[in-house]
């Protein structure tokens, strides 16, 4: 699943560590999400979307 996390994070001027601390997960988890290796749970996906003031659909895209 593709996502906009990296683009949104960089636009917000945050490091992976800073975003991880805000979300309450490890930096490695943020990295895995950004690289598409790990698909977050629904609660975490919602938390990410809320953090960036976007919808889950805007943040995460099912591969075409």
């Amino acid at each position, binding site marked *: 699943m593709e996502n906009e996390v990296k683009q949104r994070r960089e636009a917000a001027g945050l490091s992976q560590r800073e975003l991880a601390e805000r979300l*309450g997960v*490890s930096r*490695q988890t943020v990295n895995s999400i950004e690289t598409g290796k790990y698909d977050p749970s629904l609660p975490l996906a919602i938390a990410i979307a809320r953090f960036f003031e976007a919808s889950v659909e805007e943040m995460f895209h099912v591969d075409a």
Partner: protein
Amino acid sequence: MSMRNGSAPGKRAPLVVGLLAGAAVVVVLGLLVREFGPGNMGNGVLAGGSIALLGIGAAAWRAWHRPDDAGPLDRHFAGSADERDAVVLTRALAVAGVTALPLTGLATVAIAVGLRWDIALAVLLFAQLAILVVAYRREVVRG
């Protein structure tokens, strides 16, 4: 909505209590086996148990003091695992669990055809540990 915190240090008291309880079990079990068990199995229990406890302590220390170097298992021991850490560990344990069945069958057959039981059990134990380590590393890399 709150996530389990994978970056903040977990509470240390449960780990310290767990390590002390584990040390007590290892010492009692090791001395019992050394007294009544065959060969040097008691020393093996004491050495293996001590190494395992030291490893757990070192993993937790790494999660607390070097979070960027810490892995899912480190954070589990430190009490700061997040959802991905749980997924990684669950998948690795599932692989170890599934492969334990045929491995145990093989060990049973090996004993039945004449292999010494202590050698078969030792090989079985180390094979299961090796599979767990490989499965864990694979899951960490995979995501």
